[in-house]
């Protein structure tokens, strides 16, 4: 069951979406998020959805995989939708029931909010699906390189992130093993109320933490043995380089944001 977690999952491929520089993709996602929060009308949301659809088409990532990414946050989406639907004040009342009033504005807000979250999540997932974790962290490190001047430990953060990503499958596997071992001894994770369920997790978390600390210790030694001494003087197997396709992609991204902003000024 834990195997279904899609966090940071990557589907290798050979499309333009895969080949873009990770920095470009991160910047595009930032632009995309800016545009999403600028969008205010059906037209602009339509444009954003179209952009996403085009990117999905280019990347050849299956729609199903993309939608599957929405599953863990389904609750949040529905919750936001219902909240907006019921508690947005407005004049045009569609119907009311007791203290609940559904207004035209509420309906509009709910639809837009849900659309926004869904587009946001699918957009970011599209990036992680088409970018290997290692080039993603590499891209982040390079993008934030300037912050080193302000004593932000950029290299260390990137290294931590890539090690975390590296150990996710290992720790998931280990959790599965510990759970099986505890189940074999009669542990019950399914029944009981919330508190009982939380208590049942303790025998999983304790060995998991102990083992994680031991792993961390051994990994640190192994890294030292391989001459790791921080980011200073490090070279790279894969050096990031912007190609013309990156400039084209970024130009398109900026144009879309500009278009959405202009449309918003025009009240569309």
């Amino acid at each position, binding site marked *: 069951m834990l195997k279904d977690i899609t966090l940071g999952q990557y589907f290798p491929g050979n499309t333009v979406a895969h080949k873009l520089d990770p920095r470009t993709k991160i910047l595009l996602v930032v632009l995309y998020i800016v545009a999403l929060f600028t969008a205010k009308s059906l037209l602009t949301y339509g444009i954003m959805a179209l952009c996403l659809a085009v990117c999905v088409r280019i990347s050849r990532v299956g729609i199903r995989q993309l939608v599957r990414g929405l599953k863990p946050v389904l609750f949040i989406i529905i919750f936001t939708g219902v909240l907006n639907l019921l508690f947005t004040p407005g004049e045009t009342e569609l119907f009311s029931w007791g203290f609940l009033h559904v207004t035209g504005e509420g309906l509009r807000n709910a639809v837009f909010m849900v659309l926004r979250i869904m587009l946001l999540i699918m957009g970011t997932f599209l990036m992680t699906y088409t970018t290997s974790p290692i080039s993603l962290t590499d891209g982040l490190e390079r993008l934030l390189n300037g912050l080193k001047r302000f004593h932000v430990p950029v290299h260390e953060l990137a290294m931590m992130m890539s090690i975390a*990503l*590296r150990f996710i499958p290992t720790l998931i596997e280990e959790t599965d093993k510990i759970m099986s071992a505890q189940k074999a001894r009669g542990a019950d994770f399914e029944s009981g109320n919330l508190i009982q369920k939380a208590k049942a997790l303790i025998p999983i978390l304790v060995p998991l933490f102990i083992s994680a600390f031991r792993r961390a210790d051994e990994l640190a030694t*192994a890294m030292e043995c391989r*001459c790791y001494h921080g980011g200073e003087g490090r*070279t790279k197997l894969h050096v990031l380089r912007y190609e013309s396709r990156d400039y084209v992609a970024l130009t398109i991204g900026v144009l879309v944001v500009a278009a959405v902003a202009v449309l918003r000024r025009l009240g569309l």
Partner: protein
Amino acid sequence: MSTMIETRDLRFAYPAEEQEQPVYALKGVDLRIEKGSFVVVLGHNGSGKSTLAKTMNAVLLPAGGKVYVEGLDTLDERLLLEIRQRVGMVFQNPDNQIVANVVEEDVAFAPENLGVPTEEIRRRVDEALKAVGMSGFVTHAPHLLSGGQKQRIAIAGVIAMEPACVVLDEATAMLDPVGRQEVLSTIHRLNREKGITVVLITHHMNEAEEADRVIVMDAGQVAMDGTPQEVFSCVDRLCSMGLTVPDTVDLLDRLQKDGVQVPLDAITVEACADAIAAAFSAAPEN
């Protein structure tokens, strides 16, 4: 032959609890490991094998005495990277020494740390993967590989530093027999073809069969040191230190105790069979 690693009266103690005497994990170890040799280190749990290994590339520093790596003193902080580059270390659990989630990125980790130029890293990665027979796995995810394959990736990650010596601390202990065989034949090949000095710490006596030299550690000291034949023929001594002998030597030892005239230094299965056959044909009336 020149010396790869030399320890002189090496002592080491882990930090002790307050008000307690520090317990020495190494109590005066004198060793000289020749360049290009294949040395196996045996010893029961807690005898100080891992501690000894970690002093060989300055992960642990001697509390007394000295360790020299190709003449470089491990106590000299300025030589740290140079020493670690010369003596690579492979540990027991492959999962805890693989840093990246792509094979080539992991193998590239050490050269990247050493500031090797990009094209040179590429060459070293390809060569290291070829040396461990994992060329077909350049872009694979390490967590999907078998134990033996993961451990070979770990070895490649060390080979990419182009070390003169590789120390393997029970690197085969977590592997199944197939994986163990893969790893063993890999390091034997590296020793033969690239002349890399190998220090193999192990629990499996039969892994010592083909070694040039066997060192037995006991209570932080070198208890025995010699060729596999010399060491394994002291069956009683080994047993008193809580060690077993290879099945072949065990068999010969039992025969000898039953009065059959066999030598104890036939370690490989073939040599053992020959020795027994010779003993029985020489004395058919037995």
